[in-house]
């Protein structure tokens, strides 16, 4: 190696070190003016999701949970049919909000496992009954020490929507105590959720990176997870996918309240709004469809929007409750499941492909 080649080597190495230093020093930039077009879109999308969907839903969830707590307390004070019906109706209002919020179990909020505390499905009815038949005082403190399988939205449904004509007076009284304790706990969890999201705002809207920790990729993974849950658990199991085709009503989520179809409806609304960024009447409605158009996948953007409409059509084709339709028109439910499967393929395969999942939302090395 002569002097000039050594100089060449040194120049190369110094250039490389310079490149790495510049790269590292630019890593933490925060100036919006420095954002590329893609980052600008991503930032706008995340801000849109947070400001116009997550926060309004979390705030609404807090209001609805507090209202449910008031109504169950009113029912405890006077166990009339009308008070019970009012509590049941309010439970449905809570579910309507939660099933849209369910999609956003992300980042620091997901790490807190609060979504399990709010709604773990299916609930453990045997353990709930054991708690009611026990001797401990059934209040918010008692519930706070218990696991997620005996509390939250699904447990409240079990208590509100099951009749206990043959049960003892003690059981009925303690059941009401348990119900109130659960709604009090839910109210606390709703407050915690609001605090968690408020604390996580900066992290959520600021995670613009392309890796698995990036908020946009987390939202895509959450969409995929929710659609898979709808296909496998919320429609597949009731259709008998796991037992050789025998219809299983009890495998439906919220079959006691016959609210299963509405739950899927709310999931679908949440997914479509998330995809389109169409949360509020603001000029700031950036969604995945805009992102796909930005990277030149206009046709895919349209295909996914069309598939959302198809899912809605299949859901609308179910006239009565999901429970009744499963027994009378199984094919309609199967068609609904198929429409979600086609939506899954478009998001998990096609959208992931054009967004480059190999280098984005993967957690292992590649070569």
């Amino acid at each position, binding site marked *: 190696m002569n002097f000039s080649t050594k100089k060449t080597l040194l120049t190369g*190495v110094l250039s490389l070190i310079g490149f790495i230093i510049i*790269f590292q020093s630019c890593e933490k930039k925060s100036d919006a003016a420095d954002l590329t077009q893609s980052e600008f879109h991503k930032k706008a999308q995340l801000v849109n999701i947070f400001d116009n969907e997550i926060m309004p839903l979390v705030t609404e969830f807090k209001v609805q949970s507090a209202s449910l707590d008031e109504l169950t307390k009113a029912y405890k004070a006077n166990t009339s049919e009308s008070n019970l019906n009012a509590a049941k109706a309010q439970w449905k209002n809570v579910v309507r909000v939660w099933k849209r919020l369910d999609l956003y179990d992300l980042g620091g909020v997901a790490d807190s496992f609060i979504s399990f505390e709010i709604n773990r499905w299916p609930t453990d009815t045997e353990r709930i009954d054991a708690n009611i038949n026990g001797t401990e005082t059934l209040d918010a403190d008692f519930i706070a020490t218990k696991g997620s399988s005996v509390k939250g939205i699904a447990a409240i449904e079990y208590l509100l929507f099951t009749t206990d004509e043959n049960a003892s007076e003690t059981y009925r009284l303690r059941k009401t105590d348990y119900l109130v304790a659960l709604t009090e706990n839910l109210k606390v969890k709703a407050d915690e959720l609001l605090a968690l999201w408020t604390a996580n705002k900066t992290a959520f809207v600021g995670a613009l990176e392309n890796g698995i920790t990036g908020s946009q990729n987390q939202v895509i993974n959450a969409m995929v997870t929710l659609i898979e849950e709808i296909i496998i658990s919320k429609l597949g199991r009731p259709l008998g996918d*796991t037992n050789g085709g025998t219809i299983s009503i009890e495998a439906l989520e919220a079959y006691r309240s016959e609210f299963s179809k509405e739950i899927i409806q709310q999931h679908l609304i949440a997914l479509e709004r998330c995809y389109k960024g169409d949360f509020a009447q603001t000029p700031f409605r950036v969604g995945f469809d805009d992102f796909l158009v930005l990277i030149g996948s206009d046709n895919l953007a349209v295909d996914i929007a069309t598939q959302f409409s198809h899912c809605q059509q299949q859901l609308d084709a179910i006239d009565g409750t999901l429970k009744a339709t499963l027994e009378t028109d199984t094919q309609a439910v199967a068609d609904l499941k198929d429409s979600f*499967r086609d939506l899954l393929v478009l998001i998990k395969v*096609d959208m992931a*492909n054009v967004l480059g999942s*190999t280098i984005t939302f993967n957690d292992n090395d590649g070569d």
Partner: protein
Amino acid sequence: MTKFKSINSVDKLYDRLTQKTAILPLVVFRVVFGLLLCFSQLRFIFNGWVADCYTTPKFHFTYHFFSWIRPFDSATMYAIVGATAMLALCIALGLFYRIATILFFIGFTYLELIEKSWYLNHYYFVSLVAFLLIWLPAHRNYSIDAFIFKKIRLNEIPEWIVLVLKIQIAVVYFFGGIAKLKSDWLFEAQPLKIWLQARTDIPLLGRFFAHEYSAYLFSWSGMIYDLAIPFLLFNKRSRPWAYVLVVVFHVLTYVLFNIGMFPWMMIGASLLFISAAEWKRFFGRLGMRLKTIPAEAKAFKTHRLAIPFLVGFVGFQIIFPLRHYVLTDQVCWTENGFRFAWHVMVMEKNGFTEFTVVDNDTQKKFTVYPSQYLTVIQEKQMSFQPDMIWQFAQYLGTTFNEEGTKNLSVYVNAKVALNGRTSTVFIHPQTDLLAVKHIDDMYDFVVRLADD
């Protein structure tokens, strides 16, 4: 006369291969390889991948002919990965080198053979290099072994010893380049068009990635780099620039892609091309002097089987990666002959699978989603690889027929998207996968990619 001439040529080649060269480049390679592998194995543990890869999966996608390879319990697996890290360190230090290389090769290769969904080209490269190191005297100077056992010290080794490793490195690059000679890569700039669009967040360079021309620029320069770099490294005159290029290229791939240890492995391995004289001059310019440790051993004697083995090894390295040209004309789609062929970062591929198990006697149907049985990585990899789809179908056949008395069929609804194309049916949906008796026959049931 001709026969005499050819014998003369063989002799000349033999002489060339056995002529003496300094041991220093081999030692540098040993140290760098050992340290990198030690780090790589420790990183594997700290990333939680021992559980993800070996102990969490209920079912493992094993390699053809190696279905007998099974993981041990969690503690043992951690111990094995930890042991390979320590063995790699021993290789770097040249401590108990021979036994360390043998155990490292067995341990590392065992780990890689457990789970096909975690296949990476550089893992294959590591196994091949580890195998070669068993036979090569990389510890016979500048090592703890040579410090303790002074009589093994060598300063010079036959040329073929360094050459075989150089060829191994050259093979990775050159066949990596050949793998890029595809219409998607060259004329559609895929998958780089997708990947660079996804990396517009990179400071400075990111702005250019939003433009299509950058994908073409990277595709063509990447292909030319891979094909040319072995020759540029072999050539003494171009070597300094070539090595700078190696560093720049791999640092760039590290920054751009989720590529783990591969860039550092290649940057480290390519140091082998730098000759002892060049190292000495390099350090000399920096005011440092590389001390020559006197050799006490007799000259290294080339075993009579070494050269035939070398020829066989190189022959295998040239032929094996090309087998896909015989097996399929759509290698990225069918993946028939894709592995062990240096197809490095040549495609963006995603898939979806949904299996139906049918009990033909009762006509009962069970729908199975792989996520119920597989880890995220297993499901992702299986969804677009026919041999893995076949393996999972066989597993379902066994799982649903524990007594072995049922007459079952397994079908798959598989959709795959490749390099930005719309997803399309991947396996003929009416194929009873349990009726496909051999894993290699599975490729016959892959639906052809229409526009390839």
